[in-house]
């Protein structure tokens, strides 16, 4: 199997030299290659996890519990109040569920990128660079932790719960379509943020925690209605780090509430475009990071 991995991309690269039109075909080919690498590495990690089934079941359960306690706090809050920032429980649960599911998806697929700094510091990234497979796919899939399904499951449970409790919403086909699209695009935006964070660690290895404030911090922020935050902060996550597109803007539309002040109403449908732009930017930053990589001397 290892031999095939090594040979295939090389053969494909030679083939590509013959094809005149680079651009899209190349992009598609690279994408396919990345996907295959990712699937192979992740599959290996899943098989290794599944060797200890009961241990896996326990960590999955505890991962679910950790995130569940996070939601218990909101339940406790609603034990004292009817609404937060003018939002009822069902609406907050919907916000929490969309953001939580997106973040859970991103954490499951690219959460391992957090360890980039360590790889750069101890030089183990060299091993990945030597392999004839896309680097980002290798690093993202390395240490693939299936137990992170716990977070995703919790997000989904809360999302479904929120949807069941929502009664003031008049569902249109557009709104029904918007919910899954939002979750997927939100996950892609979170992934892009994680890739940018990992890229930054090429230059500053110890700053992994800064990424946390945008990923975990962003997730916490999006769980609450935008009405309770300072307007500068809301504008910051719309225009600077576009986390508002993960869930807030589309979710507000679904809930039939106005967009935050100064944000056009069509922004609710901009998530796919924003996700695409984020991916492009993340790719550029990643490329710059890899180019500046100098292996450790020790």
């Amino acid at each position, binding site marked *: 199997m290892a031999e095939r991995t090594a040979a295939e991309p090389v053969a494909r690269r030679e083939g590509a030299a013959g094809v005149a039109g680079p651009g899209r075909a190349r992009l598609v080919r690279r994408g396919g290659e990345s996907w295959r690498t990712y699937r192979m590495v992740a599959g290996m990690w899943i098989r290794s996890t599944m060797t200890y089934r009961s241990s896996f079941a326990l960590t999955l359960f505890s991962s679910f519990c950790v995130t569940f306690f996070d939601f218990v706090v909101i339940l406790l809050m609603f034990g*004292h*109040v009817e609404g*937060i920032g003018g939002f009822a429980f069902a609406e907050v649960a919907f916000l929490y569920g969309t953001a939580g599911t997106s973040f859970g998806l991103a954490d499951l697929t690219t959460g391992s990128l957090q360890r980039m700094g360590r790889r750069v510091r101890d030089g183990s990234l060299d091993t990945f660079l030597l392999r004839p497979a896309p680097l980002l796919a290798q690093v993202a899939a390395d240490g693939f932790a299936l137990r992170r399904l716990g977070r995703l499951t919790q997000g989904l449970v809360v999302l479904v719960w929120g949807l069941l409790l929502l009664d003031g919403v008049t569902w249109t086909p557009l709104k029904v379509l918007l919910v899954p699209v939002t979750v997927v695009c939100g996950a892609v935006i979170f992934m892009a943020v994680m890739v940018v964070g990992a890229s930054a660690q090429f230059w500053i290895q*110890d*700053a992994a925690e800064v990424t946390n*404030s945008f990923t975990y*911090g962003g997730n916490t922020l999006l769980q609450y209605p935008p009405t309770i935050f300072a307007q500068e902060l809301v504008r910051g996550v719309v225009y600077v780090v576009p986390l508002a597109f993960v869930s807030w803007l589309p979710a507000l539309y679904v809930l039939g509430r106005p967009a935050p002040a100064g944000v056009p109403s069509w922004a609710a449908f901009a998530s796919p475009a924003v996700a695409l732009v984020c991916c492009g930017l993340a790719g550029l930053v990643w490329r710059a990071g890899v180019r500046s990589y100098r292996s450790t001397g020790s």
Partner: protein
Amino acid sequence: MPPEGDGKSARGSRPAPTRVVRFAALPSAAERGFTVPRPRLYATVAAGGFRRHATYRVATAAGVFTNSVFGLVLSYTYIALWDERPRLGGYSVDDALAYVWIGQALLTVCGLMGGGFETELMERVRTGDIAVDLHRPADLQAWWLAANAGRCAFQLLGRGAAPMVIGALVFDFTLPDGPGRWAAFLLSVALGSLVGFALWYLVAMSAFWLLDGQGVAQAAWLCGMFFSGMLLPLNVFPGALGDLARVLPWASLLQVPADVYLGRYGDGGGLVGAYAFQGCWALVLLAAGRAAQAAATRKVVVQGG
């Protein structure tokens, strides 16, 4: 404890071919005629702990940034909550905001979500490096306590003070009445960090039996996150859950220091009661850690190979 191993080998002309190494059987440092003034030794270890963590300046700056972002997000949710229910849990909005930033400041100092040393200690048990530690002319628990004290001192200055200042610049939260209150708060924080150490040391000791202490660590992490009141003050917890949470050791880590800061214990008997609560938990947990350590070193089989 009489060194039984020594007696055996002295009697025979050759040492026994195989035997289980018992750490209690090894001659202690004093028996080997090697003495270091204890207070100076542990002061040096503590200073080493401080310097070690002070080396990672970028990581500290990154931590301060993250603490501040979380503090900011939590602050707004608390403002919304206290807007709906003023005086919830006996706090004013300003008190609640002070509570948020105290929580961010004490996160690493009191080990709310991980003591910052247990992973390393458990790894040493797993790899067998712990044998080196047990040979040292120092007590294992006291050694790690000293190192952790140094870590806490640095974290208080580095990751504690900075988010507090940032929070105070953004929000107008409650500040202690005077220097006396600050001193009372710092004493409570010191006791809180002692309880935090004792808790995580106990968690780390589990590795002697389980080898992989990740499960225990994760359970402790979960309890710490919820019962320390980091997400929501414990006096907002309802009914029996609140009563339980307020007497568990995790209450010593954040809730008690924060209430000392806010002056909810007053200056007299109430304050002494708060210290006594923290002190009792510290003593009980340190003693439990000692017992676990004694049991572990009696039976320890060193990993290696």
